[in-house]
């Protein structure tokens, strides 16, 4: 079903939801937007062309989370139970919602059952806001997503100026919008036009067809050293990435707590073994791992691409490395260099 939500009624709606749910919505925090609890005084940040700087995966998989308490002196363990409050995340972008659904394959499928992730997922509704004006750093349409994709969403909003067109995508979200008027077919066509225009505005960043094989076949080549030459080896691209999920378990012994922290393959210590051997000794291997994981290994473990084209790694890389160009270069290496010789 599709409904009309006049923008002037949005605050009243969010307030109505607040009676039953914790409502999180993008708001300015300094120079950038982040998901913060909605209050009647909140100034929502829905007109920005791009997503929040810090990825919403953190709302399900916090960067640092206590997962176990213990008493060193007695050896007693106290598990921390995974309890989540009912939440609505309002205004999440389609690339980020898709990323959450990708992470379900890591934290909530088969043998991988993470109680913390699952508790939060079960209690959270994702209400998306489509991107009618994507940025120059966005490349969702090249990465199996799109400015109005619905993967992972319970509802999707399309900005039509004075109103939002609301597309209902799950039964559990129905009660959130039951007071709204249905959208006329003309409005639905308008929304369709806005969506197509946004998709057409995004140039193709690379060709995904056959890419995995092309990357796999140049695994051993020097191209990776060339691509990694200016990389600083910081964690920005992976920590801001909505699909990166690596973590490390650490005992914060002084407070008897086991903590799960985000970790990143871009750090030297990530793959450093106790013997002092490091199977990924330089930035070359670490950069290769980041790109190969997203564009090759994800296909193997989940039959999906591990990137949604959100553009954060492009936007915030401190040396201006652009994953689109890196993928293009690595993908072309086989034909342009190996076969040419």
């Amino acid at each position, binding site marked *: 079903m599709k409904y009309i939500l006049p923008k002037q009624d949005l605050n009243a709606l969010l307030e109505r939801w607040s009676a039953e749910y914790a409502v999180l919505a993008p708001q300015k925090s*300094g*120079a*950038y937007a982040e998901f913060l609890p909605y209050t009647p005084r909140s100034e929502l940040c829905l007109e920005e*062309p*791009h997503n929040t*700087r*810090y990825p919403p995966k953190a709302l399900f998989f916090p*960067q*640092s989370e206590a997962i176990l308490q213990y008493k060193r002196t007695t050896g007693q363990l106290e598990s921390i139970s995974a309890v989540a409050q009912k939440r609505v995340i309002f205004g999440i972008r389609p690339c980020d919602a898709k990323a959450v659904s990708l992470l379900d394959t890591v934290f909530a499928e088969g043998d991988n059952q993470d109680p913390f992730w699952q508790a939060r997922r079960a209690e959270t509704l994702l209400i998306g806001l489509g991107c009618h*004006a994507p*940025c*120059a*750093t966005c490349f969702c349409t090249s990465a199996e997503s799109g400015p109005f994709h619905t993967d992972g969403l319970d509802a999707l909003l399309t900005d039509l100026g004075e109103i939002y067109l609301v597309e209902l995508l799950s039964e559990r979200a129905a009660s959130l919008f039951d007071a709204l008027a249905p959208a006329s077919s003309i409005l639905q066509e308008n929304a369709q036009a806005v969506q197509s225009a946004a998709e057409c505005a995004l140039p193709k960043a690379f060709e995904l067809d056959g890419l995995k094989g092309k990357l796999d076949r140049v695994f051993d080549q020097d191209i990776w050293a060339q691509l990694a*030459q*200016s990389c*600083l*080896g*910081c*964690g*920005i691209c992976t*920590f*801001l990435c909505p699909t990166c999920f690596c973590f*490390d378990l*650490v005992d*914060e012994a002084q407070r008897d707590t086991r*903590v799960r*922290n985000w970790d*990143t393959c871009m*750090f*030297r*210590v990530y793959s450093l073994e106790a013997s002092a051997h490091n199977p990924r000794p330089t930035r070359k291997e670490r950069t290769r791992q980041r790109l190969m994981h997203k564009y090759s290994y994800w296909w193997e473990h989940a039959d999906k691409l591990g990137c949604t084209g959100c553009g954060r790694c*492009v*936007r*915030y*890389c*401190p*040396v*201006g*490395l*652009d994953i*689109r*160009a890196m993928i293009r270069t690595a993908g072309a290496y086989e034909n342009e260099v190996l076969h040419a010789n």
Partner: protein
Amino acid sequence: MTELEQKIRAEAARLLSEGLVDVVMAFRKEDAPLRPQPAFFTCVEDLENLIYNGLCANNLANYLTRYPDETRIGMLVRGCENRSVNALVVEKQHSRQNLYLIGVPCTGIIDWRKVVALTGEDILGYEETDSSLHVRTKRQSYQLPRRELLHASCQRCVHPNPLSADIVLGEALPEGDPALIRERVEAFEALTRAERTAYFKQEAERCIRCYACREACPMCYCEECFVDHNSPRWTESGTTPAGTHAWHIIRAFHQTGRCTSCGACERACPMDIQMTYLTDKLGKDMWDSYQFAAGMDAKSQPPFASFTLDDRKHFQAGGMHS
């Protein structure tokens, strides 16, 4: 291509073709809008990709420690980069004789975040002049005053000219006003302890422990950073206040007498965290106590790294008053 770019390319071409250096470190044209990339040129043909403008944001001295000492490096240096190189030479991270510094007086680095805050992100192209940045987006064009777009560290820059370059391309610029850094530090010092703590917490607690500040800093070249040490562990590794506070305090302290106020740490930070108020405070203390400023030449040891046998030894028993 600007006249300055042309001169830099010509000098880089001379160095490579005459076999005087093994690599030239400079910048190349961006893939993502407004983000020129550090680049490492080893052959003359590639130099057509070399660019130089106000958006070249990285401190290239950062890459010096990646090369073995015998590598002969030609590198583009602005005022701060030259001082970083000096400080690294003092710390024996590269022999000065194996460096050829192509100096460029610097009119300041443009903060791309300030640009996109004004223009939005759908940038198609830009042109820079001495006084302005002309930006074209899908919707309109902008003529922005360059001075206002500069990174905060560059607005406070004292020494824009390379101090010990082998060649300087372009006209020397007037020195900056040292009062600008000093006044900012004094304003911080004048806050109450509670206010200083609140400011420190507000900045440090946004940290996501990505260590971009460390990796962008030429002076952070330890093989193993204290936060990566795990036996024993010195700090919490997560984003808890205990972890972020420890990181920001200790990172700053390790820069005492070594930081050249280039601002690379803040330019790299994905969370817009202020850090130079701490390092500039330490810089002011080093000046007030020892009349020392990092990187002004390639010989002087930072006060905390130098010692003589007749140093006062107040840490010894009974030595407090000696």
